[in-house]
């Protein structure tokens, strides 16, 4: 019943508005006041400065509130570089934004129609053209160079001395983490060995070396002050590892392992003090749409001092201690028909 009333009153309002509009336009026609340039031109011209100014003021007043929220504290070495560059770039573009928008709306207002003035026929000036090609080109060149330095040091040749190697794997809809164990070597895997029912979600191949002391963890523990080499993969669809506080992001691609090397600089405890939030936790999110629960692929990251990390590491039970039935199980345990392609695969892997 209420919806009928709501809908019919909406229709009624709409009809009244149309009627008013019709009357207004008929009156305008009768009065013959339909020249293009009337008072509305002045009103629009005034709006050209008033509205942008109002919006600017509103944005400026709101900014301090927003800024409190969007500054994510930085917890990695390269994060400091990228953030510095980010804010420098923001200031540069802010200036460009203000100057050009001011010129645009300023001209629109200042050169509004005036029957006593004639527009100039000025339409070409190669010098000006060259100047305003070169200015943005120079600004771009500087920013490109600065960006390239950061990129080079972060992605192309990151500091990876004594890097801690950890594997993270995305699947619908969770992250899983594997550590190489005492030998520091991650065991080989094969996607055909994955068996969720029995618990080998990584497809670890226990026939090969290095797998025996691998262990899984429920949280991503990493040491402070030492590079971490995150080996990233996915087993079903694309995912993307995103660790906002560390300024780390890298896609997880089925069939194509990727990696990201970074150096954490603050422990979880230190961050709790810094933010004044006793319950603070580093979070890891997925940033490549992967299906229904994409938005819920959260994983907790724990950054510890080196000795605490070592202690934690040593206390972990290996995969085989947990599930001894997998001992020695590898590619040869697969059915014959799958093996044909498996052997080919092993050969290519060796090359």
């Amino acid at each position, binding site marked *: 019943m209420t919806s009928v009333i709501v809908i019919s009153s909406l229709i009624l309002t709409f009809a009244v508005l149309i009627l008013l509009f019709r009357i207004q336009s008929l009156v305008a*026609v009768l009065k013959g006041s339909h020249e*293009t340039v009337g008072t*509305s031109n002045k009103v*629009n011209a005034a*709006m*050209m400065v008033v509205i*942008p100014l109002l919006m600017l003021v509103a944005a400026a007043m709101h900014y301090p509130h*927003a800024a409190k929220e969007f500054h*994510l504290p930085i917890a990695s070495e390269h994060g400091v*570089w*990228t*953030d510095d560059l980010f804010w420098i*770039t923001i200031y540069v*573009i802010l200036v460009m934004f203000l100057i*050009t928008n001011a010129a*645009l*709306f300023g*001209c*629109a207002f200042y*050169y*509004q129609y005036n029957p006593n*003035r004639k*527009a*100039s*026929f*000025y*339409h*070409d*000036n190669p010098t000006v053209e060259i100047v*305003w090609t070169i200015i*943005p080109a120079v600004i*771009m060149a500087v920013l*490109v160079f600065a*960006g*390239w330095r950061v990129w080079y040091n*972060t*992605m192309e040749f990151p500091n990876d001395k004594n890097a801690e190697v950890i594997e993270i794997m995305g699947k*619908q809809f969770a992250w899983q983490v594997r550590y190489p164990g005492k030998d520091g070597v991650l065991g080989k895997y094969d996607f055909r060995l*994955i068996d969720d029912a029995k618990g080998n979600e990584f497809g670890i191949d226990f026939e090969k070396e290095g797998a025996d002391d691998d262990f899984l963890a429920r949280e991503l523990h990493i040491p402070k002050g030492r590079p971490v080499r995150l080996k990233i993969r996915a*087993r*079903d*669809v*694309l995912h993307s590892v995103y660790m906002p506080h560390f*300024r780390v*992001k890298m896609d997880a*691609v089925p*069939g*194509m392992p990727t990696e990201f090397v970074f150096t954490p600089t603050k422990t979880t405890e230190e961050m709790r003090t810094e933010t004044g939030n006793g319950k603070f*936790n580093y*979070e890891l*999110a*997925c*940033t490549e*749409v992967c*299906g*229904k629960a*994409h*938005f*819920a692929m*959260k994983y907790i990251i724990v950054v510890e001092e080196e000795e605490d990390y070592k202690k934690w590491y040593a206390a972990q039970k290996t995969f085989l201690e947990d599930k001894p039935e997998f001992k020695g199980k590898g590619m040869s345990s697969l059915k014959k028909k799958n093996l044909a392609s498996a052997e080919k695969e092993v050969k290519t892997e060796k090359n």
Partner: protein
Amino acid sequence: MAEHAQVHAEVHGHDHDHHHDHDHDHDHHEQSFISKYVFSEDHKTIAKQFLIMGLIWAFIGGAMSVIFRLQLGFPDMNLEFLRPILGTWINETGKLGQEQYLALVTMHGTIMVFFVLTAGLSGTFSNFLIPLQVGAPDMASGFLNMLSFWFFFLASVIMFASLFIETGPASGGWVVYPPLSALPQAMSGSGLGMTMWLMSMSIFIASSLLGSINYITTVINMRTKGMSFTRLPLTIWAFFLTAIIGVLSFPVLFAAALLLIFDRSMGTSFYLDQIYIGGEALHNQGGSAILYQHLFWFLGHPEVYIVLLPALGITSEIIATNSRKPIFGYHAMIGSMIGIGFLSFIVWAHHMFMTGMNPFLGTVFMFLTLIIAVPSAVKAFNYIATLWQGNIIFTPAMLFSIGLVSVFISGGVTGIVLGNNALDIQLHDTYFVVAHFHIVMGSASFFGFVAGVYHWFPKMFGRMMDAKLGYIHFWITFIGIYCVFFPMHYTGIAGFPRRYYSHTGFDAFNKFADLNMFISGAAIVTFFAQGLFAFNFVYSIFRGRIAPENPWNATTLEWTTPRVPGHGNWPHGQIPHVHRWAYDYSKPNADKDGFGDFIPQHIPLSQTPNSNTEHDMAHSHKAQHA
């Protein structure tokens, strides 16, 4: 030299055809409704068909964004009242379903980019303006042109139908990356919905190619006498370059789609490798998911300019006309469009900085990407310089054009941030990107579209749209889109990822409840303000004030046609010849020649002895001897 002779010969050819056509027309006066309005080969009718389809899609796509914005802005709200429209997409708890959220986002993106801003914008204005502005009776091939629309129609029907199937439409984002889009077991939208998406898009690509080939041919071959390339209005330059970009890039998307179809239904492994899903290991090996992204973005990035260039062309025309001033830097404008068009093909991998591709490749693409900012900046400066010392009349079209320049700048500058790959590590796939592309591509192209409708409505329908409603429409929209998209930068800097159903799951992102509510509120207001436009549009078609032949005192050829140009555009096939460029506004001494503040393109120099410049004389001299 030869070129000119050819043009000349052709014009004569046309004149001939014309008489012919015209006689022909007489028999056709009893044309059935079907051949006149439905399967029409007249470029103006086809343009209107594209326009109306485009607008319908725009409202559907916009409504979708309002619905998913409700979920994001008001996560606790009971959406039961949407059940009459959305049916089971609203789950038992009165919320939008999670997969349905992704379905809406995906459909919204696909519809907006392809159906509204490619077909709707380019299809409408390239079709309508190319023959009218170059001085041609119609497109090179009316039949292909008709097919182009009906292919688009078919693509639309399939995409629309996919909204109603049980497993829902494609839901993997508008880029439909495999493996998600290749595996029906990965999400329900990857089933039949995805098949229909691929069918629809393949047909859409055919439509776009048919259109583009026609536009290119018409611009090259059917210009009237005297209409050299350096006298073309910038609109035509923009449509021409857009069509070339489309012809070069859409086939690559088709290839990408075709391989995806093979992977989906024929067991191939172009994009698939080492996948374990739904409790089993798939047989697929050796493919590359990244290959798809390379192919997709080889179209995807040029696509940005396919939607943007026509809007910029339209703006050039409107800003010059309503500033009563020649466009500043005509040659620089053409040069920068060519530069943008070329560069747009070699920057695609800036969408893939974080896919794990070789970081060195990332460096190369960063360099190339930031170069493209230069011609874009030049264009913005030239628009501002055109306003400078003008005598500006604020028609609704002019307001939207100025608005376009503003959003083009505001969205463009954040491209400088995203193109810098070191900064993209943090910002990639967050709301910063959503903010950036909605402002620079979504809003700018949308403004260009609307500006074009306001400006050429009189020639399309012979009536004027109401200006006052247009002003209100502009100001609400202008404020609205800044309110919607500007704050998204903030959530993006905080790291909130795109395509997220909810922001409450993470402490890091869960700080913007108020801001999200504000954004959603602004989106709702902005969306409903478009009702003003819809009303104005429909009302004016039937009841608008009768338009004069040249309501904006513009110089280009379309305004020399009758109020409502008939088949063949100029009566009796009398196509005007062109004697000057399109921008003789406020020419000094024009009054001594008996002209006001503009001299149309078809006026011979001999009629304007007082206002001719040395440059004019040199140009015509060259033309005569060529």
